């Protein structure tokens, strides 16, 4: 065991608390307790997980694992008897929480209101479950507390009396939230009732936690408040500034609710901190943020848990106490870091299978981090529910279904069965999203393929699967799925258009819902097109999405990347600035913006952005490289060399940095030894690039070689094969290519040039070059017809007797080539359709020049395209 940093640790959770709301309040002097907290401790942003659903997130915080391991996969689960759904319970959690580990280590914990924590676990200490504060009846009808709400049982009576019923909330309590309360007719507007309920819940949790904090012995306390999240979901739409389209009257009534909620939390924090001694470390966290500005969505998607769309990716984290730095900022924190940090504070090892890490940057002194293989393997009593109470609710539901099938029990009502099934699918979907978030894409694909098969009309599942295929470079599968999803979308849109107003209204329950879910398929298609080296088409897709999703960080970054590829610097700048408005700490966005400044000759502005990028992520090698470039422009050559050296320390193979260093040391800094070092590296490692024109025979490869020749791009050909009737302008072949399978010695000749290699030979290319493949695609029937004619088999063509076996063999071979290309990181491919080149040459030729990064002569290239040579065109219905 390492040294224990704190005698006691108090963890406070404020669901959805966001710095964007807090900072202005602190500046106005309205959150003085938190202001003092920040000055006396460290704080920063904490990154959420996807999906940002609170029961999953607070369980990840308390366990250090993602949902696939901890077992809490959504808001609801089926009842044990399959008769209905219930809020998710603690019995579904499959792993130890921090309080269970501390129980095993002989420590006492108080846990108040954690989500989910019902029924309360038999821990060493006191647990008050998340059902504690719920009031389902008017107080006159009695306010029972269900069994299992409090452990130990003997504390139940005392704690029961510390709850606040919503009906106890008075006008005096409500005035800071709704100053115009008297103008509201609550029969018609239920918002004041909701706000009173949220306030009562917060007061109940606070009442129980202050009692336990003062009256019990404890080593660890965890207190969870959901009020800020609920105030925000109810009233963030009314939070200033006023937004067009909102009823002004409602805005005037409810614009103070969110701020009042935060201020009340500050008041509660003051009392909590009054009772904390000098031996206690206090940690305040939220699980995600909440959009409070122009990034608030105008609509919510039509899917379960839609309100999570209002959540923003960064919550808050603050620490203060013995051994914690003062006035510092924490960078790079994640919700998965909470349990590792708590374990470290208690001097306990962290699980090697925990994804997060302790936030050591917050500690004054370095600490020794010890690890343990897996806390789940540590035997002994840990205060979890007994095995007979713990269950996987979905497994239990399946067992129930079996009993129904066997005839032992009656089937539940059809609607209930449908709801249970739909909830099960959603839970699976959330786990898949969580796996994607954790880069476990293969596992996510497994789940999503099942979901898509079982729910073919649920576009969301298909969209995620398409993204996974993209991530794993399964471009053909991604493309196929996107086409299916686009067809499905047309069908769904048609169905929606044919709905009656009543049916549509019933579907669109949220008052702010204006439009259908933005075209996420277009977004995935755009990403696919980027991978397929079609930046112009990719941008068209992204722009379609941007019209409907005005605040997506990933979308802005992708638009920025595409604009950079197309040298549209001002557009790229705009995109990165928008990305920074969502996340102003993003290294990628600062780097992208810096690159735009660099390429438009603003090296000082560029440096500013690059420095911000490395402040966020010091290991971003490209940022260091571009710092070098900017410093060269400013004639600060020594510093530039240092920057390039840092770049290659992170990416030793960065040839462009080596080139600069060789040049600088040789010609400017008079260090011939170092210059030699880098020159040697370049000689031994530089790969060289070869442009390959490929495809099936008769797919247009000769035409493409002629086009490249006309552009001025060097072509490798020996003209052994002379032009003929089938190819009057020449074959542009290179004889040694035919022996590629056994002889690769000719490849150095191809460096920096284009060479024609048929598709079937591509997998024989060695891995020590970079390849850019222009792959010609042509209708298979046309290819076969052309081949038959070339072979003198015109009779087959006229009788349309094609060798169909050949067609399927070619298709199979193409599939193998596609798989090979997808798996080769040093291979870039651009699919070019022969018909498109003939019919729309300018656009296609521009794409090609972009792909090979060559400033060619488009007019000369266009002259090569001869429609009269487009023979064997087959009319398709």
């Amino acid at each position, binding site marked *: 065991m390492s040294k224990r940093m704190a005698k006691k640790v108090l963890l406070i959770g404020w669901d959805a608390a966001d710095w964007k709301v807090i900072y202005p309040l602190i500046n106005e002097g309205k959150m003085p307790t938190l202001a003092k907290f920040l000055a006396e401790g460290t704080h920063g942003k904490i990154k959420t997980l996807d999906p940002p659903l609170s029961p999953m997130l607070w369980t990840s915080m308390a366990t250090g694992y993602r949902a696939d391991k901890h077992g809490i996969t959504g808001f609801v689960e089926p009842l044990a008897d399959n008769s209905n759904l219930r809020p998710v319970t603690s019995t579904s959690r499959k792993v130890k929480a921090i309080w269970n580990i501390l129980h095993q280590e002989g420590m006492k914990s108080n846990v108040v209101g954690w989500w989910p924590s019902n029924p309360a676990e038999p821990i060493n200490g006191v647990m008050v479950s998340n059902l504690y504060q719920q009031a389902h009846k008017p107080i006159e009808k009695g306010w029972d507390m269900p069994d299992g709400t409090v452990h130990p049982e003997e504390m139940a009576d005392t704690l029961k009396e*510390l709850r*606040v019923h919503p009906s*106890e909330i*008075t*006008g*005096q*309590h409500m005035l*800071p939230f709704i100053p115009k309360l008297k103008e509201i007719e609550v029969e018609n507007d239920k918002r004041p009732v909701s706000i009173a309920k949220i*306030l009562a819940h917060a*007061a109940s949790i*606070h*009442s*129980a*936690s*202050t*009692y336990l904090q*003062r009256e019990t012995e404890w080593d660890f306390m965890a207190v969870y408040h959901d009020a800020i999240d609920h105030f925000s979901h109810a009233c963030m739409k009314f939070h200033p500034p006023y937004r067009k389209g909102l009823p002004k009257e409602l805005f005037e009534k409810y614009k103070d609710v969110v701020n009042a909620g935060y201020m*009340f939390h500050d*008041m*509660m924090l*003051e*009392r*909590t901190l*009054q009772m904390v001694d000098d031996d206690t470390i206090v940690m305040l966290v939220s699980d995600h943020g909440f959009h409070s500005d122009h990034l608030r969505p105008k609509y919510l998607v039509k899917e379960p848990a839609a309100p999570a769309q209002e959540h923003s990716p960064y919550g808050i984290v603050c620490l203060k106490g013995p051994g914690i730095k003062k006035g510092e900022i924490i960078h790079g924190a994640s919700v998965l870091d909470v349990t590792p940090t708590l374990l470290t504070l208690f001097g306990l090892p962290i699980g090697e299978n925990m994804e997060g890490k302790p936030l050591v940057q917050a500690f004054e002194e370095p600490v020794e981090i010890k690890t343990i293989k897996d806390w789940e393997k540590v035997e002994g009593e840990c205060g979890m529910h007994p095995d007979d109470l713990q269950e996987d609710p979905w497994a239990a539901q399946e067992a129930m279904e079996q009993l129904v099938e066997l005839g032992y029990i009656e089937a539940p009502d059809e609607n209930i069965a449908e709801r249970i099934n739909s909830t099960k699918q959603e839970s699976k979907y959330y786990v898949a999203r969580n796996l994607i978030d954790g880069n476990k894409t293969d596992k996510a694909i497994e789940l999503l393929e099942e979901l898509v098969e079982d729910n073919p009309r649920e576009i969301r599942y298909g969209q995620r699967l398409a993204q996974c295929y993209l991530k794993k470079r399964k471009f053909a599968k991604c493309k196929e799925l996107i086409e299916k999803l686009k067809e499905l979308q047309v069908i769904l849109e048609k169905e929606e258009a044919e709905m009656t107003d009543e049916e549509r209204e019933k579907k669109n329950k949220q008052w702010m819902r204006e439009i259908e879910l933005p075209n996420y398929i277009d977004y995935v298609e755009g990403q696919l097109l980027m991978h397929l080296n079609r930046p112009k088409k990719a941008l068209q897709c992204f722009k379609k999405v941007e019209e409907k999703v005005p605040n997506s960080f990933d979308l802005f970054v992708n638009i920025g990347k595409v604009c950079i590829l197309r040298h549209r610097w001002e557009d790229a700048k705009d995109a990165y600035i928008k990305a920074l408005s969502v996340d102003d700490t993003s290294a990628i966005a600062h780097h992208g913006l810096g690159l735009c400044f660099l390429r438009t000759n603003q090296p000082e502005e560029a440096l500013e952005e690059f420095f911000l990028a490395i402040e966020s992520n010091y290991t971003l090698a490209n940022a260091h490289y571009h710092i070098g470039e900017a410093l060269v422009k400013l004639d600060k050559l020594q510093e530039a060399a240092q920057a390039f050296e840092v770049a290659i320390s992170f990416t030793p193979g960065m040839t462009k940095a080596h080139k600069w260093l060789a040049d600088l040391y040789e010609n400017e800094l008079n260090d011939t030894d170092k210059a030699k070092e880098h020159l040697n590296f370049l000689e031994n490692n530089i790969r060289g690039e070869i442009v390959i024109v490929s495809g099936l025979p008769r797919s247009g490869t000769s035409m493409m070689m002629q086009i490249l020749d006309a552009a001025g791009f060097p072509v490798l050909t020996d003209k052994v094969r002379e032009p003929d009737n089938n190819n009057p302008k020449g074959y542009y072949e290179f004889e040694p290519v035919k022996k590629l399978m056994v002889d690769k010695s000719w490849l150095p000749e191809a460096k920096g040039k284009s060479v024609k290699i048929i598709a079937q030979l591509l997998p024989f290319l060695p891995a020590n070059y970079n390849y850019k493949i222009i792959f010609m695609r042509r209708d298979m029937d046309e290819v076969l017809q052309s081949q038959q004619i070339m072979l003198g088999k015109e009779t087959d063509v006229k009788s349309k007797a094609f060798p169909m076996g050949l067609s399927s063999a070619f298709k199979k071979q193409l599939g193998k080539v596609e798989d090979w290309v997808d798996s080769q990181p040093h291979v870039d491919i651009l699919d070019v359709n022969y018909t498109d080149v003939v019919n729309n040459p300018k656009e296609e030729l521009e794409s090609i020049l972009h792909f090979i990064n060559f400033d060619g002569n488009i007019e000369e290239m266009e002259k090569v395209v001869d429609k009269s040579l487009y023979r064997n065109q087959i009319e398709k219905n």
Partner: protein
Amino acid sequence: MTEKKNKKMDIPLEGSLGLLAYGDLGLKAWRAKIKEEEKKKPVKKEKKDE
């Protein structure tokens, strides 16, 4: 209600956010105040039919 620094606080009958923010002690003090005021109210005698 007496705070840590032996400062007596007025407890408004309508309650206040400050009392709720004070936690269990604030809540108890407010409820005690309500009970106290309830006791002061005259008890209504029921009229019997003649």
